[in-house]
């Protein structure tokens, strides 16, 4: 199997100068620039959150919260990375927080011998069973591996950017990707059997 991530188009984003210009305009309170930023990155953030396993019922709010965080942090964007990388990093942090929150809630329910929270309802817009299975398998990966796999294989982010988002060296990113793929394939084989 080839590396789909390498062939997928990288997320749409402007050049570094254009990014800096857009951010500067947003900071000045330019509504058009802010709308432009949202239009460009909201579908990406939403897709990333879906792939990362944020449940359908939390996704919309999570996406909004990511953009609130983006806005609040605009003053700290120095242009050292692409804007898309920076936004992915915020989204990843947020997705991780949601995933932890769900885990804690589930654990507490178990400890208190209550009814565990119901599994997330399937997204009616995602009727493909294939996609549902993929989501299920990806959700079983550890957060670090999941992040790298989602960014590279689904989002089409180049590995050097993936490394920046994950906050690890490039080789570590490759390594996590390798293990994530292997685990995914193993889980898929097991499921087929």
């Amino acid at each position: 199997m080839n590396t789909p991530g390498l062939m997928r188009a990288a997320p749409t984003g402007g050049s570094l100068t254009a990014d800096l210009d857009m951010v500067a305009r947003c900071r000045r309170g330019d509504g058009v620039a802010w709308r432009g930023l949202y239009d460009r990155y909201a579908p990406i953030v939403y897709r990333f959150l879906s792939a990362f396993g944020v449940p359908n019922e939390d996704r919309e709010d999570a996406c909004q919260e990511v953009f609130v965080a983006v806005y609040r942090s605009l003053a700290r964007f120095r242009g050292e990375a692409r804007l898309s990388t920076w936004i992915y990093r915020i989204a990843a942090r947020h997705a991780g927080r949601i995933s932890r929150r769900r885990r804690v809630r589930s654990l507490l329910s178990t400890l208190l011998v209550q009814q565990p929270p119901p599994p997330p309802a399937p997204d009616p817009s995602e009727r493909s069973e294939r996609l549902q299975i993929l989501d299920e398998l990806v959700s079983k990966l550890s957060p670090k591996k999941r992040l790298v796999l989602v960014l590279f294989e689904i989002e089409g982010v180049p590995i050097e950017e993936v490394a920046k988002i994950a906050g690890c060296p490039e080789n570590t990113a490759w390594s996590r990707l390798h293990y994530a793929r292997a685990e995914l394939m193993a889980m898929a084989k097991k499921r087929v059997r």
Partner: protein
Amino acid sequence: MTPQHRWPDGPDELSAELRRALDEAALRGPDDMTLRRGWSAIATPMPPARTRRGFWFAGGVATTAALALAGSLWLWPHATELPWSGHGKTVAKAESPAPLGSRRLTLEGGVEAVLGRSSVMRIEDGAPRIEGGEVRFSVPHRQPGHPFVVRAEGYRVVVVGTRFGINVDGKAEDKTGSRTDGQKAVGVDVDEGIVEVWEAATQRRLARLTPGESWQSPDVAAEAPAGPAAVEPAPAPSVPAATISTQARMLRHVGKHPTAHALALASPGEITSERATSPAETPTAESTAARAALAAGDAPRALQLYRALAQGTGPSAENASYEVGKVLNEKLGQPANAVAAWRGYRAAHPDGILRVEADVSIIETLVRTGDTDEALSEANDFLRRRPGSERRAEIARLAGDLYRARGDCRHALAAYQITLGASRPRDAVEAATFHRAACLVQLGDAGGADAARAYLRAYPSGKFRGEAAALTSGGGSAPRP
């Protein structure tokens, strides 16, 4: 490419399947409505947070205190006292903190209104009137024949259940910027559902807006220069030169609350709002008498009054025309005549605001009376003609059940698929999910058991769980509707 950069070996079929799944995941994205709702939530930029490392601890304490204060304010039940406006001093309930200076009110009937910082809304004869600024409404689905009416200058905005906004803009100003007595410009934009704009003076419909469309009163369309000379009087009956544009408007939406919020407002002024006494349309003498007759149990009298009222024009006549069918069906037990009356309504008002209600009433009545052929024909016609209707999922589910009752699982599957494309109503989606699985099993499709399992995963305590479990073990058969 190093081995590390390649996928591990696996069966070709499995690799291809994984690849397809990843491709599908890459194509996944939010729909337009989700994006618009998201934009609504963040439309107005907030001042970026400035953190100073040297004051972290103090900042932490201050933030904690602020959060505690905000939390207590959030939890503390509060009401906003509002100015006197001629119908008694009333208190509007602020449901939740609306962002950035706007105020959220809940009116009777569950209607949510969000007034911007300088919006002015009054209640006149039981219906809201917007005098300035922008107010956005979220109107739950209304009882047929009882639309929600908002007045703005010389216009009436009539809705059944939708999300929309009205902006009364103080464009009629003189050169010093002070307000003149002229009529202000009115703008309406629709997020969901259908909204009609009527000219109050002539009872004439000026526009029928679908989602994404907006309407502006003539003086705004003409972009008249500011100044006393440019102030237009109340719209003359012969000048319906308003514009409808399809330009999407920005809305603000917080979390899952189904309320849209106001944008930045043009006209300054105090916030004036009240609890609405009745969000229904201002009643005419006949409609009041008809309702009174119904309340008194005199259905024949109500029918007579509604029939007389239906001979007129305007929204009251249109409502009455629909009500005739309702009285015949619900009060007089004449379903066939009711269907005929609703068909009469459709003929008289092919694009009427109650058209969908009439269609749905006809279909439901035909099903109830056992005329399944006619019901199916009506349902299919509805599904063909109304691709964007919010009632589509219900009707598709109904059509699916009717097909299934005939043993036509193939057509039933197609109908259930339409229901599954919607996210609500939940019970219709749940039923369609299960019945789709049942149909697949009945057709001998290998995916039937999987579909039943998917149902059980999605609805572990669903009402079809027993039958679904039977389907997964191969022991079930499609239940009858």
